[in-house]
């Protein structure tokens, strides 16, 4: 039982970090609602967190949508650095989000340097300026954790 509660605590932390509402509140509205203005630009609708696999590799899971063009592929990359300011980037993983895969990307990655905290962020296109709201979300991979934390 204590096992389960600790898991729920970890889950809540992730939900708060990504700004998502609790799972129970995510059912469809009773009546149709198209809330507010039309969404624009790039948005990370799901994920952003990474989970550690049993073999020690981290699996990155994210869904990024371009509301201005919902059919073209999105070229992005995951930047991995040793500091929060991303001055020392140790790895760049290129990713491609396609409509056929619902713009979901699942990328496994095994850090070359173990026993170090690593920071990662998603970058759309060639520069962090393309979608600042996505790039500004930074997560930490800690060697002793099984799940990435907001950095």
């Amino acid at each position: 039982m204590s096992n389960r509660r600790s898991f729920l605590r970890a889950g809540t932390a992730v939900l708060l970090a990504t700004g998502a509402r609790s799972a129970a509140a995510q059912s469809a509205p009773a009546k149709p609602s198209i809330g507010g203005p039309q969404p624009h630009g790039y948005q990370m609708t799901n994920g952003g967190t990474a989970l550690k696999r049993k073999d020690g590799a981290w699996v990155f899971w994210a869904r990024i949508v371009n509301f201005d063009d919902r059919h073209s592929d999105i070229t992005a990359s995951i930047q991995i650095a040793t500091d929060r300011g991303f001055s020392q980037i140790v790895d760049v993983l290129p990713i491609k989000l396609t409509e056929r895969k619902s713009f979901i990307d699942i990328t496994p990655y095994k850090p070359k340097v173990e026993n170090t905290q690593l920071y990662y962020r998603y970058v759309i296109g060639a520069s962090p300026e393309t979608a600042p709201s996505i790039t500004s979300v930074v997560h930490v991979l800690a060697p002793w954790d099984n799940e990435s934390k907001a950095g």
Partner: protein
Amino acid sequence: MAQTEILMAVIDKGSNTMTTYQAIMSALTSNSDSLTLMLNSTTLVATITNVVPVMQPVRIQTNALLATTAVVKVYADWKDPKKRVQTSDLLTLVNASGTVLVSVLLLADIGVEVAAGIAAFTLASDIQSVVTQFASDLAVQLSLPFPNNFVPPVSTAGSNLYWSALKNGAIGGLATYDEIMSDSRLFACFKDNPGGGWYPSYSPIPGSITPVDATDYVDSFCGWAHTQDSTHGDMAMGFPVEYCERTQSSP
């Protein structure tokens, strides 16, 4: 105990309510209850530690029954890591007070390290006889919207994904509620195939764990289709207008 993750489809009777599913969820958040998987009603196989929604409910509208299905990820503590549950084994999901009692109809091997794609179906017992014959059909269909490289572990933080359909009625991928309502405006559902089996179709009404107003959703969709019709004359022969004329008899 060994941790494992299973992707499970929960099927509930009712057009857009999921009482069994909600009972599972509330059993997990309560502090005094516990969920376990029993094999053939006697052997304790695993203790469930968490259930996470992966895909929002999909409606099933057929002649035989109205039902709703949602895909969830189940985290289980396997009692004996060597124990494997095989196809056609009957598992029962049960909680301490016995209020959640559903059967798990197995379609793939489940065990530690074994859980790929949709691995299991849980059914409320009253619809078991109707759904069982379509189970293999549903397993293939429900895995359609997922990306090919759906490898464990599956992180679903912030997940509120619906299975969407495109404007012309073709079945698309996963999308959020806002995306569907502002663009494609259709949710996937399952319907009868005259030749047998169920096939994914489309509906303006979302599958939901709480009751939704179906008439309001259809009205809203047809109102939108009408404005599209007046701005794009070539869409008059297209899917939305045809759908609305068929479903709304009165003008």
